[in-house]
């Protein structure tokens, strides 16, 4: 009974959401893109203009370094996350329904924590006065408490912590739909559980893994606080810089330019990842 809309009234129902999304999403985006071409004015905000100055700053060594670091960090986080999450999600989808639900509630709760709370949690955990080292000291394993942050390891840990539940949820649909008879067949042919996982499950979901890597990469690129909170200034990423420029340096045009750049990168990666996902579905 799926017809084409017949009367004008039929279009009314979609007009409202379309309108809302256009006004409050498309337009803000458009404005942001416009602002990226504006001229920054010292002491005030910015004035409408059309300059490429903001984009030109991309070509500086300083920016290049930050970009390189952001990409490297996000890639590393994505890989670690997927390596941990893939076997875990596989195990999760083989559990009983009740066990799955418990885990899912747990993961969703962790996922709902914003970067601020995760940052707070980890900076506390890694601190000198209220962290894991204090626990180890009180247990007699360590002599003195010490601060484990700021450090690259701290940033990595915090980011993996944030991306892990997300990675699990992205992998969940594909893994829960995996035909169990594939692995069962391998087992009857003498393959142990680890071997059949490596030889059957991983190749079968190759495309899912790739597209998940990409999605997590995009997600990690968006971390705006953890590198700042848990790391040194040399660990700042693009998103941190955007936030910093927008709020503290009052340099909206430059922040906007970087944001536009980030959007383009994210969108193209998401598109690639969707193509990978479709390929697998077709296969």
């Amino acid at each position, binding site marked *: 009974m799926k017809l084409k809309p017949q009367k004008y009234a039929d279009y009314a129902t979609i007009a409202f959401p379309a309108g809302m999304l256009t006004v409050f999403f498309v337009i803000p985006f458009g404005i942001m893109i416009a602002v990226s071409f504006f001229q920054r004015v010292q002491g005030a905000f910015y004035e409408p203009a059309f300059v490429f100055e903001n984009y030109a700053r991309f070509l500086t060594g300083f920016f290049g370094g930050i970009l390189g670091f952001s990409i490297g960090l996000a890639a590393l986080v994505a890989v670690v996350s997927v390596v941990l999450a893939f076997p875990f999600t596989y195990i999760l989808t083989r559990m009983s329904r009740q066990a799955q639900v418990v885990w899912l509630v747990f993961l*969703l709760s962790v996922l709902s924590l914003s970067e601020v709370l995760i940052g*707070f949690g980890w900076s*506390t955990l890694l601190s000198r*006065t209220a962290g894991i080292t204090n626990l180890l000291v009180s247990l007699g394993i360590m002599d003195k408490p010490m601060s484990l942050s700021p450090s690259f390891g701290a940033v990595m840990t915090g980011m993996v912590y944030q991306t892990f539940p997300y990675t699990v949820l992205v992998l969940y649909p594909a893994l829960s739909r995996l035909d169990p008879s594939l692995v069962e067949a391998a087992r009857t042919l003498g393959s142990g559980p680890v071997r059949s996982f490596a030889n059957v499950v991983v190749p079968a979901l190759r495309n899912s893994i790739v597209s998940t890597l990409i999605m997590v990469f995009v997600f990690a690129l968006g971390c*705006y606080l953890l590198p700042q909170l848990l790391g040194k200034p040399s660990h700042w990423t693009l*998103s941190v810089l955007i936030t910093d420029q927008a709020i503290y340096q009052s340099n909206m045009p430059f922040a906007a330019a970087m944001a536009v750049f980030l959007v383009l990168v994210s969108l193209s990666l998401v598109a690639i990842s969707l193509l990978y996902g479709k390929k697998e579905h077709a296969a």
Partner: protein
Amino acid sequence: MINKFVLRLFLGSLVLFLSAPLVVVAGVSFNEKKSLSFPPQGFSLDWYAQIFTDDGWRQALFNSVGVAIGASCLSVIVAFPLAWFLWRFHAPWARIVQVLGLAPFILPPVITALGFLSFWTTAGAYGQPWTVVISHGIFFVTLPLVTLTLGFDAVDDSLVEAAATMGADDKTILRTVILPLILPYIISGMAFAFVLSLNEYIVAYMAVGFTVETLPIKIFNSLRYGYTPTMASVTVLFVAVAVIVFGLIARFGDLPRLLGAWRHDEDG
């Protein structure tokens, strides 16, 4: 068996990893003195009481809850007609609107936040409290959109056709057949949006950070300007709310299905 041991070790380490910061934060929240120390010295529930007795924190709590309620309602109000239209009509061009509905959530939040910052500044409404309700409402549209799309998909076409054969027009079908069947999905979509809005920092900050303090904003400010264990107790509160809400959804709904699993008896 070695394998079972390895499995237990793997899962156990994950539980440890995921809950470690939460445990520490919880520990800190019980600390007697106004300092962050772990393991906690002394035991006190003061910092939980502070959420309600301290003016700053209490106001932030009200702000957060108010914004979350407003935003989650708005996101459902926007998502519902869109999901209904996509289900009811054959209109390929409507996919564009659907992508628009999914987009805010797929992009890095920093970007959406910046977009809203520029928007509200240009509109001259920067800093008004209602701007964050709209910002969050649009930002989280994706969540009810996804649950509602699932819900509509689950509605048996023959129920709709049967209702039509009994004399029900579109409006009546919506009211008497679809809404009752879709209600769980509306509620879970709203609940997702509510919990996430409660927790959300950057969009809120860029929209109204200087005028309205929500709880996450207040925590961030405390991180920069003055530690207090109340931050910890608020965090514990957040986790508790999330667990309760998601637990309720799991209890009354089909959580695995909402997240993409097929039921075991309906193999595709």
